[in-house]
Protein backbone atom coordinates (compact mmCIF):
# COMPACT_ATOMS: atom_id res chain seq x y z
CA UNK A 1 0.00 0.00 0.00
CA UNK A 2 2.76 2.49 0.91
CA UNK A 3 5.13 2.68 -2.04
CA UNK A 4 8.70 3.58 -1.12
CA UNK A 5 10.14 6.60 -2.85
CA UNK A 6 13.41 6.30 -4.64
CA UNK A 7 16.07 8.92 -3.90
CA UNK A 8 14.18 10.84 -1.23
CA UNK A 9 14.99 10.34 2.41
CA UNK A 10 11.68 9.11 3.75
CA UNK A 11 10.19 5.80 2.85
CA UNK A 12 6.43 5.84 3.22
CA UNK A 13 6.35 2.22 4.34
CA UNK A 14 9.09 2.87 6.89
CA UNK A 15 7.30 5.97 8.20
CA UNK A 16 4.11 4.00 8.48
CA UNK A 17 5.70 1.25 10.54
CA UNK A 18 7.87 3.53 12.68
CA UNK A 19 5.33 6.17 13.52
CA UNK A 20 1.76 4.98 12.74
CA UNK A 21 0.87 8.50 11.61
CA UNK A 22 -2.61 9.82 12.38
CA UNK A 23 -3.63 13.21 11.02
CA UNK A 24 -5.99 14.97 13.42
CA UNK A 25 -6.99 17.75 11.05
CA UNK A 26 -8.22 17.02 7.54
CA UNK A 27 -11.04 18.30 5.36
CA UNK A 28 -12.55 17.44 1.99
CA UNK A 29 -12.46 20.94 0.54
CA UNK A 30 -9.87 21.80 -2.15
CA UNK A 31 -9.52 18.09 -2.87
CA UNK A 32 -10.21 16.71 -6.38
CA UNK A 33 -13.38 14.66 -6.81
CA UNK A 34 -17.12 15.10 -7.33
CA UNK A 35 -18.36 13.08 -4.38
CA UNK A 36 -17.20 12.63 -0.79
CA UNK A 37 -16.06 9.12 -1.71
CA UNK A 38 -14.03 10.36 -4.67
CA UNK A 39 -12.43 13.11 -2.63
CA UNK A 40 -11.60 10.70 0.14
CA UNK A 41 -10.06 8.32 -2.36
CA UNK A 42 -7.82 11.16 -3.55
CA UNK A 43 -6.83 12.02 0.03
CA UNK A 44 -5.99 8.40 0.75
CA UNK A 45 -3.82 8.25 -2.34
CA UNK A 46 -1.82 11.27 -1.17
CA UNK A 47 -1.70 9.96 2.40
CA UNK A 48 -0.38 6.60 1.20
CA UNK A 49 2.58 8.26 -0.46
CA UNK A 50 3.63 9.57 2.95
CA UNK A 51 2.75 6.59 5.09
CA UNK A 52 -0.16 8.28 6.87
CA UNK A 53 -2.30 5.59 8.44
CA UNK A 54 -5.47 7.41 9.44
CA UNK A 55 -7.22 10.76 9.02
CA UNK A 56 -9.60 12.50 11.38
CA UNK A 57 -11.98 14.18 8.95
CA UNK A 58 -14.25 17.15 9.56
CA UNK A 59 -16.23 20.01 7.99
CA UNK A 60 -16.83 18.29 4.65
CA UNK A 61 -16.36 20.47 1.58
CA UNK A 62 -17.14 23.82 3.09
CA UNK A 63 -15.01 26.49 4.64
CA UNK A 64 -18.14 28.53 5.41
CA UNK A 65 -17.74 30.06 8.84
CA UNK A 66 -21.46 30.79 9.25
CA UNK A 67 -23.16 27.53 8.33
CA UNK A 68 -26.89 27.11 8.96
CA UNK A 69 -28.20 23.83 10.37
CA UNK A 70 -28.90 22.37 6.93
CA UNK A 71 -25.32 23.08 5.86
CA UNK A 72 -23.88 21.60 9.03
CA UNK A 73 -25.90 18.47 8.53
CA UNK A 74 -24.91 18.19 4.88
CA UNK A 75 -21.20 18.58 5.69
CA UNK A 76 -21.40 16.00 8.46
CA UNK A 77 -23.18 13.64 6.08
CA UNK A 78 -20.39 14.12 3.56
CA UNK A 79 -17.80 13.27 6.18
CA UNK A 80 -19.70 10.15 7.22
CA UNK A 81 -19.98 9.04 3.57
CA UNK A 82 -16.25 9.48 3.09
CA UNK A 83 -15.42 7.59 6.29
CA UNK A 84 -17.85 4.81 5.49
CA UNK A 85 -15.96 4.22 2.23
CA UNK A 86 -12.60 3.94 4.07
CA UNK A 87 -13.45 2.77 7.60
CA UNK A 88 -9.92 1.53 8.27
CA UNK A 89 -8.34 4.81 7.20
CA UNK A 90 -10.47 7.56 8.71
CA UNK A 91 -12.65 8.64 11.60
CA UNK A 92 -15.22 11.38 11.43
CA UNK A 93 -15.38 14.45 13.65
CA UNK A 94 -18.63 16.38 13.98
CA UNK A 95 -18.95 20.00 12.79
CA UNK A 96 -21.13 22.09 15.11
CA UNK A 97 -21.93 25.76 15.66
CA UNK A 98 -22.61 27.50 18.97
CA UNK A 99 -24.98 29.83 17.08
CA UNK A 100 -27.27 26.88 16.44
CA UNK A 101 -26.98 25.32 19.86
CA UNK A 102 -30.09 23.15 20.03
CA UNK A 103 -29.46 21.84 16.56
CA UNK A 104 -25.79 21.24 17.40
CA UNK A 105 -26.62 19.16 20.46
CA UNK A 106 -28.99 17.04 18.37
CA UNK A 107 -26.36 16.77 15.67
CA UNK A 108 -23.80 15.59 18.21
CA UNK A 109 -26.17 12.83 19.26
CA UNK A 110 -26.88 11.87 15.65
CA UNK A 111 -23.25 11.78 14.57
CA UNK A 112 -21.33 10.84 17.72
CA UNK A 113 -23.57 9.30 20.38
CA UNK A 114 -25.66 7.34 17.90
CA UNK A 115 -23.41 7.57 14.85
CA UNK A 116 -19.89 6.63 13.83
CA UNK A 117 -18.04 9.87 14.67
CA UNK A 118 -15.46 9.95 17.44
CA UNK A 119 -14.64 13.61 18.14
CA UNK A 120 -15.86 17.19 17.93
CA UNK A 121 -14.54 19.86 15.59
CA UNK A 122 -12.83 21.47 13.94
CA UNK A 123 -15.08 23.98 15.68
CA UNK A 124 -14.65 27.26 13.87
CA UNK A 125 -18.01 28.84 13.28
CA UNK A 126 -19.78 31.98 14.41
CA UNK A 127 -18.60 32.62 17.96
CA UNK A 128 -15.37 32.72 19.90
CA UNK A 129 -15.00 29.56 21.90
CA UNK A 130 -15.10 31.25 25.29
CA UNK A 131 -18.81 31.95 24.69
CA UNK A 132 -21.17 30.25 27.16
CA UNK A 133 -22.92 28.49 24.28
CA UNK A 134 -19.88 26.23 24.04
CA UNK A 135 -20.47 24.81 27.52
CA UNK A 136 -23.32 22.42 26.63
CA UNK A 137 -21.39 21.22 23.59
CA UNK A 138 -18.34 20.48 25.73
CA UNK A 139 -20.51 18.70 28.30
CA UNK A 140 -21.90 16.49 25.54
CA UNK A 141 -18.37 15.74 24.36
CA UNK A 142 -17.28 14.85 27.89
CA UNK A 143 -20.23 12.52 28.28
CA UNK A 144 -18.90 10.51 25.34
CA UNK A 145 -15.22 11.10 26.17
CA UNK A 146 -14.77 12.75 22.79
CA UNK A 147 -11.83 15.17 22.32
CA UNK A 148 -12.54 18.61 20.86
CA UNK A 149 -10.56 20.22 18.04
CA UNK A 150 -10.96 24.01 18.28
CA UNK A 151 -9.74 26.42 15.59
CA UNK A 152 -7.54 29.23 16.93
CA UNK A 153 -5.54 32.05 15.37
CA UNK A 154 -3.70 35.10 16.61
CA UNK A 155 -3.42 37.35 13.58
CA UNK A 156 -1.17 40.35 13.96
CA UNK A 157 -3.68 42.43 12.00
CA UNK A 158 -6.61 41.17 14.08
CA UNK A 159 -8.75 38.05 13.92
CA UNK A 160 -12.00 37.75 11.99
CA UNK A 161 -15.17 38.51 13.98
CA UNK A 162 -16.01 35.42 16.02
CA UNK A 163 -12.63 33.81 15.37
CA UNK A 164 -11.16 32.17 18.46
CA UNK A 165 -7.74 32.74 19.97
CA UNK A 166 -5.75 30.38 22.19
CA UNK A 167 -6.71 32.69 25.08
CA UNK A 168 -10.38 31.92 24.40
CA UNK A 169 -9.66 28.20 24.36
CA UNK A 170 -7.80 28.35 27.66
CA UNK A 171 -10.83 30.07 29.20
CA UNK A 172 -13.08 27.30 27.96
CA UNK A 173 -10.65 24.60 29.05
CA UNK A 174 -10.48 26.02 32.56
CA UNK A 175 -14.27 25.78 32.81
CA UNK A 176 -14.10 22.12 31.76
CA UNK A 177 -11.04 20.48 33.32
CA UNK A 178 -12.36 17.00 32.52
CA UNK A 179 -12.50 17.71 28.76
CA UNK A 180 -9.67 17.19 26.26
CA UNK A 181 -9.03 20.08 23.87
CA UNK A 182 -6.77 20.29 20.85
CA UNK A 183 -5.68 23.83 20.00
CA UNK A 184 -5.84 23.82 16.20
CA UNK A 185 -2.98 25.77 14.57
CA UNK A 186 -1.65 26.63 18.06
CA UNK A 187 -2.80 30.14 17.23
CA UNK A 188 -0.78 30.26 14.00
CA UNK A 189 1.62 32.56 15.80
CA UNK A 190 2.99 29.51 17.58
CA UNK A 191 5.60 31.32 19.64
CA UNK A 192 2.73 33.04 21.44
CA UNK A 193 0.23 30.21 21.19
CA UNK A 194 2.46 27.70 22.96
CA UNK A 195 3.01 30.12 25.84
CA UNK A 196 -0.70 30.88 26.11
CA UNK A 197 -1.75 27.25 26.51
CA UNK A 198 1.29 26.22 28.56
CA UNK A 199 -0.46 26.11 31.92
CA UNK A 200 -3.70 24.56 30.61
CA UNK A 201 -2.95 20.90 31.05
CA UNK A 202 -6.04 19.68 29.19
CA UNK A 203 -5.09 21.55 26.02
CA UNK A 204 -2.75 20.05 23.41
CA UNK A 205 -0.92 22.02 20.73
CA UNK A 206 -1.73 21.06 17.16
CA UNK A 207 0.77 21.72 14.39
CA UNK A 208 -1.56 22.07 11.38
CA UNK A 209 -2.22 24.82 8.94
CA UNK A 210 0.62 27.30 9.22
CA UNK A 211 3.94 27.66 7.46
CA UNK A 212 6.54 24.97 8.21
CA UNK A 213 8.75 27.37 10.12
CA UNK A 214 11.74 25.74 11.74
CA UNK A 215 11.68 25.41 15.49
CA UNK A 216 7.91 25.10 15.89
CA UNK A 217 7.81 21.54 17.11
CA UNK A 218 11.00 21.85 19.14
CA UNK A 219 9.55 24.76 21.11
CA UNK A 220 6.25 22.97 21.64
CA UNK A 221 8.00 19.88 22.97
CA UNK A 222 10.29 21.95 25.18
CA UNK A 223 7.48 23.98 26.72
CA UNK A 224 4.59 21.49 26.82
CA UNK A 225 6.20 18.07 26.68
CA UNK A 226 5.81 15.74 23.71
CA UNK A 227 2.62 14.29 25.23
CA UNK A 228 0.82 17.57 24.49
CA UNK A 229 1.84 18.05 20.86
CA UNK A 230 -0.20 16.59 17.99
CA UNK A 231 0.38 16.38 14.23
CA UNK A 232 -2.28 17.60 11.85
CA UNK A 233 -2.19 18.97 8.34
CA UNK A 234 -5.35 20.98 7.52
CA UNK A 235 -5.60 19.36 4.08
CA UNK A 236 -6.88 20.08 1.45
CA UNK A 237 -5.94 23.78 1.89
CA UNK A 238 -2.52 22.69 3.11
CA UNK A 239 -0.58 19.62 2.10
CA UNK A 240 0.01 16.62 4.30
CA UNK A 241 3.66 16.94 3.43
CA UNK A 242 4.47 20.53 4.40
CA UNK A 243 3.01 19.94 7.84
CA UNK A 244 4.44 16.46 8.33
CA UNK A 245 7.86 17.94 7.61
CA UNK A 246 7.58 20.00 10.80
CA UNK A 247 7.61 16.85 12.89
CA UNK A 248 9.87 14.61 10.83
CA UNK A 249 12.37 17.45 10.50
CA UNK A 250 12.35 18.50 14.14
CA UNK A 251 15.36 18.02 16.37
CA UNK A 252 13.53 15.90 18.93
CA UNK A 253 13.88 12.27 19.99
CA UNK A 254 12.25 9.56 17.90
CA UNK A 255 10.06 8.65 20.86
CA UNK A 256 8.66 12.20 20.85
CA UNK A 257 7.94 11.99 17.13
CA UNK A 258 6.01 8.77 17.68
CA UNK A 259 3.81 10.48 20.25
CA UNK A 260 3.22 13.57 18.13
CA UNK A 261 2.53 11.70 14.90
CA UNK A 262 -0.03 9.33 16.32
CA UNK A 263 0.53 8.12 19.86
CA UNK A 264 -1.06 11.11 21.52
CA UNK A 265 -4.13 11.08 19.32
CA UNK A 266 -4.63 7.37 19.86
CA UNK A 267 -4.39 7.98 23.62
CA UNK A 268 -7.00 10.77 23.47
CA UNK A 269 -9.35 8.70 21.33
CA UNK A 270 -8.96 5.39 23.14
CA UNK A 271 -11.81 5.99 25.64
CA UNK A 272 -14.39 6.78 22.97
CA UNK A 273 -13.11 4.10 20.61
CA UNK A 274 -13.47 1.54 23.40
CA UNK A 275 -16.88 2.90 24.31
CA UNK A 276 -17.99 2.42 20.72
CA UNK A 277 -16.40 -0.99 20.47
CA UNK A 278 -13.93 0.09 17.79
CA UNK A 279 -10.60 -1.65 17.54
CA UNK A 280 -7.92 0.56 19.15
Amino acid at each position, binding site marked *: MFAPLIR*LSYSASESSERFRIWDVHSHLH*SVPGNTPEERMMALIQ*FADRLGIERLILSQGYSADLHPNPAQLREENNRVMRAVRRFPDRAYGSVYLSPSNLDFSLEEFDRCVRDGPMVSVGELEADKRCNAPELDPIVEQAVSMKAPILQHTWL*KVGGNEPGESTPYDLVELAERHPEASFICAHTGGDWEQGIRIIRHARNVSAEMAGFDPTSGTVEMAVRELGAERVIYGSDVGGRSFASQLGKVLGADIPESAKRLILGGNMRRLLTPILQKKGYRV
Partner: protein
Amino acid sequence: MIVDTNVSLSRWPFRRLVGDEPAELVARLRKQNVGQAWAGSFDGILHKDISGVNTRLAKDCRTFGHGMLVPFGSINPKLPDWQEDVRRCQEEHNMPGIRLHPNYHGYTLDDPVFAELLKLALTCRMIVQLVLSMEDVRTQHPLMRVPPVDAAPLGDLVKNQPGLRLVVLNWAPGLQSGQWHTVLSSTGHVYFDISTVEGVGGVARLVEQVSLERVLFGSNYPLFYFESALLKMQESGLTEVQKNALLEENARLLLAPTGGESHAHKSL
Protein backbone atom coordinates in the same frame (compact mmCIF):
# COMPACT_ATOMS: atom_id res chain seq x y z
CA MET B 1 21.51 14.45 -5.91
CA ILE B 2 19.46 17.54 -5.14
CA VAL B 3 20.03 21.16 -6.16
CA ASP B 4 18.28 23.38 -3.63
CA THR B 5 17.74 26.80 -5.19
CA ASN B 6 16.49 28.51 -2.04
CA VAL B 7 18.64 28.47 1.09
CA SER B 8 19.93 31.34 3.21
CA LEU B 9 22.99 31.85 5.37
CA SER B 10 23.48 33.91 8.53
CA ARG B 11 20.75 34.82 11.01
CA TRP B 12 17.00 35.17 10.58
CA PRO B 13 16.29 38.39 12.50
CA PHE B 14 13.46 37.04 14.64
CA ARG B 15 14.67 33.69 15.97
CA ARG B 16 17.66 31.40 15.98
CA LEU B 17 17.31 28.47 13.60
CA VAL B 18 18.79 25.02 13.52
CA GLY B 19 21.19 25.32 10.58
CA ASP B 20 21.97 29.01 10.86
CA GLU B 21 25.68 28.27 11.21
CA PRO B 22 27.17 27.49 7.80
CA ALA B 23 29.03 24.33 8.85
CA GLU B 24 25.87 22.91 10.36
CA LEU B 25 23.76 23.98 7.39
CA VAL B 26 26.11 22.22 5.00
CA ALA B 27 26.18 19.06 7.12
CA ARG B 28 22.41 18.91 7.34
CA LEU B 29 21.92 19.54 3.63
CA ARG B 30 24.47 16.86 2.76
CA LYS B 31 22.56 14.42 4.92
CA GLN B 32 19.52 15.15 2.73
CA ASN B 33 21.51 14.40 -0.43
CA VAL B 34 21.81 18.05 -1.43
CA GLY B 35 24.83 18.45 -3.70
CA GLN B 36 24.37 22.11 -4.50
CA ALA B 37 22.57 24.92 -2.68
CA TRP B 38 21.95 28.42 -4.05
CA ALA B 39 22.53 30.57 -1.02
CA GLY B 40 21.45 34.10 -0.27
CA SER B 41 21.93 35.84 3.06
CA PHE B 42 19.29 36.73 5.63
CA ASP B 43 21.45 39.76 6.34
CA GLY B 44 20.64 41.09 2.88
CA ILE B 45 17.03 41.64 3.91
CA LEU B 46 17.65 44.39 6.48
CA HIS B 47 21.33 45.36 6.47
CA LYS B 48 22.30 48.57 4.69
CA ASP B 49 25.95 47.57 4.26
CA ILE B 50 25.09 45.23 1.41
CA SER B 51 28.68 45.09 0.22
CA GLY B 52 29.69 43.69 3.60
CA VAL B 53 26.82 41.20 3.49
CA ASN B 54 27.86 39.93 0.07
CA THR B 55 31.54 39.71 1.00
CA ARG B 56 30.68 37.56 4.02
CA LEU B 57 28.32 35.44 1.92
CA ALA B 58 31.00 34.81 -0.70
CA LYS B 59 33.56 33.96 1.98
CA ASP B 60 31.23 31.49 3.75
CA CYS B 61 30.40 29.82 0.44
CA ARG B 62 34.14 29.41 -0.26
CA THR B 63 34.93 28.22 3.26
CA PHE B 64 32.15 25.71 3.85
CA GLY B 65 30.82 22.85 1.77
CA HIS B 66 33.65 22.36 -0.73
CA GLY B 67 31.73 24.11 -3.47
CA MET B 68 28.26 23.02 -2.43
CA LEU B 69 27.14 26.58 -1.67
CA VAL B 70 26.60 28.87 -4.67
CA PRO B 71 26.32 32.49 -3.52
CA PHE B 72 23.53 34.77 -4.73
CA GLY B 73 24.31 38.30 -3.54
CA SER B 74 21.73 40.71 -2.24
CA ILE B 75 21.06 43.89 -4.16
CA ASN B 76 19.05 46.78 -2.78
CA PRO B 77 18.42 49.22 -5.61
CA LYS B 78 17.25 51.85 -3.16
CA LEU B 79 20.77 52.20 -1.80
CA PRO B 80 23.18 54.71 -3.33
CA ASP B 81 25.49 53.26 -5.98
CA TRP B 82 23.77 49.87 -5.99
CA GLN B 83 25.19 49.23 -9.46
CA GLU B 84 28.61 48.84 -7.83
CA ASP B 85 27.19 46.00 -5.69
CA VAL B 86 26.07 44.21 -8.84
CA ARG B 87 29.54 44.66 -10.34
CA ARG B 88 31.22 43.29 -7.22
CA CYS B 89 28.85 40.29 -7.12
CA GLN B 90 29.80 39.41 -10.64
CA GLU B 91 33.43 40.44 -10.98
CA GLU B 92 34.86 40.08 -7.49
CA HIS B 93 32.75 37.28 -6.04
CA ASN B 94 32.00 35.38 -9.26
CA MET B 95 28.37 35.01 -8.27
CA PRO B 96 26.06 33.60 -10.94
CA GLY B 97 23.11 35.60 -9.71
CA ILE B 98 21.53 38.02 -7.29
CA ARG B 99 18.63 37.81 -4.84
CA LEU B 100 16.07 40.60 -4.42
CA HIS B 101 13.65 41.43 -1.60
CA PRO B 102 11.58 44.36 -2.95
CA ASN B 103 9.08 44.35 -0.08
CA TYR B 104 11.83 44.66 2.53
CA HIS B 105 13.77 47.20 0.47
CA GLY B 106 10.83 49.50 -0.08
CA TYR B 107 10.03 49.40 -3.79
CA THR B 108 7.34 47.92 -5.98
CA LEU B 109 7.89 46.09 -9.23
CA ASP B 110 6.59 49.02 -11.26
CA ASP B 111 9.31 51.25 -9.84
CA PRO B 112 11.63 52.18 -12.76
CA VAL B 113 14.63 51.17 -10.68
CA PHE B 114 13.47 47.56 -10.75
CA ALA B 115 13.40 47.55 -14.56
CA GLU B 116 16.86 49.15 -14.53
CA LEU B 117 18.12 46.43 -12.20
CA LEU B 118 16.70 43.66 -14.40
CA LYS B 119 18.35 45.24 -17.41
CA LEU B 120 21.73 45.37 -15.68
CA ALA B 121 21.39 41.76 -14.52
CA LEU B 122 20.62 40.73 -18.08
CA THR B 123 23.62 42.64 -19.37
CA CYS B 124 25.79 40.89 -16.78
CA ARG B 125 24.15 37.54 -17.65
CA MET B 126 23.22 37.06 -14.02
CA ILE B 127 20.26 35.03 -12.77
CA VAL B 128 17.77 37.10 -10.77
CA GLN B 129 16.08 35.47 -7.77
CA LEU B 130 13.02 37.52 -6.84
CA VAL B 131 11.66 36.72 -3.36
CA LEU B 132 7.99 37.61 -3.03
CA SER B 133 7.61 36.93 0.69
CA MET B 134 9.47 35.60 3.70
CA GLU B 135 6.74 35.14 6.31
CA ASP B 136 3.00 34.72 6.57
CA VAL B 137 1.78 38.29 7.09
CA ARG B 138 -0.56 37.07 9.82
CA THR B 139 2.29 35.99 12.07
CA GLN B 140 4.86 38.73 11.51
CA HIS B 141 6.39 40.75 14.31
CA PRO B 142 3.96 43.59 15.05
CA LEU B 143 6.67 46.19 14.43
CA MET B 144 7.82 44.53 11.20
CA ARG B 145 4.75 43.94 9.08
CA VAL B 146 5.80 43.47 5.47
CA PRO B 147 3.18 42.51 2.88
CA PRO B 148 4.20 40.22 0.01
CA VAL B 149 5.44 41.70 -3.24
CA ASP B 150 2.65 42.44 -5.72
CA ALA B 151 3.77 40.51 -8.78
CA ALA B 152 1.21 41.98 -11.17
CA PRO B 153 3.73 44.10 -13.14
CA LEU B 154 6.08 41.15 -13.66
CA GLY B 155 4.67 39.93 -16.97
CA ASP B 156 5.26 43.19 -18.82
CA LEU B 157 8.67 43.66 -17.23
CA VAL B 158 9.90 40.25 -18.27
CA LYS B 159 8.52 40.76 -21.76
CA ASN B 160 10.70 43.82 -22.09
CA GLN B 161 13.86 41.95 -21.01
CA PRO B 162 14.15 39.05 -23.45
CA GLY B 163 16.74 36.56 -22.30
CA LEU B 164 16.40 37.43 -18.64
CA ARG B 165 16.66 34.42 -16.34
CA LEU B 166 14.30 35.01 -13.45
CA VAL B 167 13.57 32.68 -10.53
CA VAL B 168 10.57 33.56 -8.38
CA LEU B 169 11.04 32.30 -4.82
CA ASN B 170 8.44 32.01 -2.03
CA TRP B 171 5.90 33.14 -4.60
CA ALA B 172 2.69 32.28 -2.74
CA PRO B 173 0.72 34.34 -1.88
CA GLY B 174 2.33 37.22 -3.82
CA LEU B 175 1.67 35.65 -7.21
CA GLN B 176 -1.83 34.42 -7.94
CA SER B 177 -2.29 31.48 -10.27
CA GLY B 178 -4.06 33.71 -12.79
CA GLN B 179 -0.90 35.80 -13.10
CA TRP B 180 1.29 32.86 -14.10
CA HIS B 181 0.10 32.95 -17.67
CA THR B 182 1.04 36.59 -18.07
CA VAL B 183 4.50 35.94 -16.71
CA LEU B 184 5.03 32.71 -18.59
CA SER B 185 3.76 34.00 -21.90
CA SER B 186 6.50 36.61 -21.91
CA THR B 187 9.76 36.02 -23.69
CA GLY B 188 11.89 35.68 -20.58
CA HIS B 189 12.88 32.47 -18.83
CA VAL B 190 10.86 32.46 -15.63
CA TYR B 191 11.08 29.72 -13.02
CA PHE B 192 9.24 29.03 -9.76
CA ASP B 193 10.46 27.24 -6.65
CA ILE B 194 8.28 24.96 -4.54
CA SER B 195 9.01 26.25 -1.03
CA THR B 196 5.61 27.86 -0.42
CA VAL B 197 3.51 25.55 -2.60
CA GLU B 198 0.57 24.23 -0.59
CA GLY B 199 -2.51 22.03 -1.04
CA VAL B 200 -2.52 18.27 -1.50
CA GLY B 201 -0.40 17.30 -4.48
CA GLY B 202 0.55 20.94 -4.90
CA VAL B 203 3.87 20.36 -6.66
CA ALA B 204 2.29 18.16 -9.32
CA ARG B 205 -0.38 20.81 -9.85
CA LEU B 206 2.29 23.50 -10.23
CA VAL B 207 4.08 21.39 -12.83
CA GLU B 208 0.80 21.03 -14.73
CA GLN B 209 0.13 24.73 -14.58
CA VAL B 210 3.52 26.21 -15.44
CA SER B 211 5.26 23.26 -17.19
CA LEU B 212 7.91 20.89 -15.94
CA GLU B 213 10.84 22.98 -17.18
CA ARG B 214 9.84 26.00 -15.09
CA VAL B 215 9.74 24.41 -11.63
CA LEU B 216 12.76 24.21 -9.32
CA PHE B 217 13.29 22.53 -5.98
CA GLY B 218 13.66 25.18 -3.27
CA SER B 219 13.27 24.57 0.45
CA ASN B 220 13.61 28.02 2.05
CA TYR B 221 15.91 26.25 4.50
CA PRO B 222 16.74 26.96 7.28
CA LEU B 223 13.74 29.27 7.80
CA PHE B 224 11.50 26.34 6.85
CA TYR B 225 12.04 22.69 7.69
CA PHE B 226 13.87 21.17 4.72
CA GLU B 227 11.75 18.05 5.06
CA SER B 228 8.59 19.96 4.17
CA ALA B 229 9.83 20.63 0.63
CA LEU B 230 11.16 17.11 0.25
CA LEU B 231 7.93 15.51 1.39
CA LYS B 232 5.90 17.70 -0.96
CA MET B 233 7.81 16.08 -3.81
CA GLN B 234 6.94 12.69 -2.38
CA GLU B 235 3.27 13.54 -1.86
CA SER B 236 2.87 14.69 -5.45
CA GLY B 237 3.64 11.28 -6.94
CA LEU B 238 5.90 12.61 -9.67
CA THR B 239 7.48 10.36 -12.27
CA GLU B 240 11.22 9.72 -12.16
CA VAL B 241 11.70 12.09 -15.08
CA GLN B 242 9.75 14.81 -13.32
CA LYS B 243 11.62 14.26 -10.07
CA ASN B 244 14.97 14.44 -11.79
CA ALA B 245 13.99 17.65 -13.54
CA LEU B 246 12.82 19.37 -10.39
CA LEU B 247 15.42 18.08 -7.99
CA GLU B 248 18.43 18.66 -10.18
CA GLU B 249 18.31 18.99 -13.92
CA ASN B 250 16.31 22.20 -14.36
CA ALA B 251 18.55 24.06 -11.93
CA ARG B 252 21.75 22.73 -13.46
CA LEU B 253 20.69 23.78 -16.91
CA LEU B 254 19.67 27.19 -15.67
CA LEU B 255 23.01 27.68 -13.98
CA ALA B 256 25.04 26.46 -16.95
CA PRO B 257 27.09 29.26 -18.55
CA THR B 258 24.83 29.40 -21.59
CA GLY B 259 21.83 29.03 -19.33
CA GLY B 260 19.25 29.04 -22.10
CA GLU B 261 15.83 27.51 -22.01
CA SER B 262 16.54 25.67 -25.26
CA HIS B 263 19.08 23.52 -23.44
CA ALA B 264 16.56 22.54 -20.81
CA HIS B 265 13.97 21.55 -23.37
CA LYS B 266 16.42 19.51 -25.41
CA SER B 267 17.79 17.48 -22.57
CA LEU B 268 14.42 16.77 -21.06
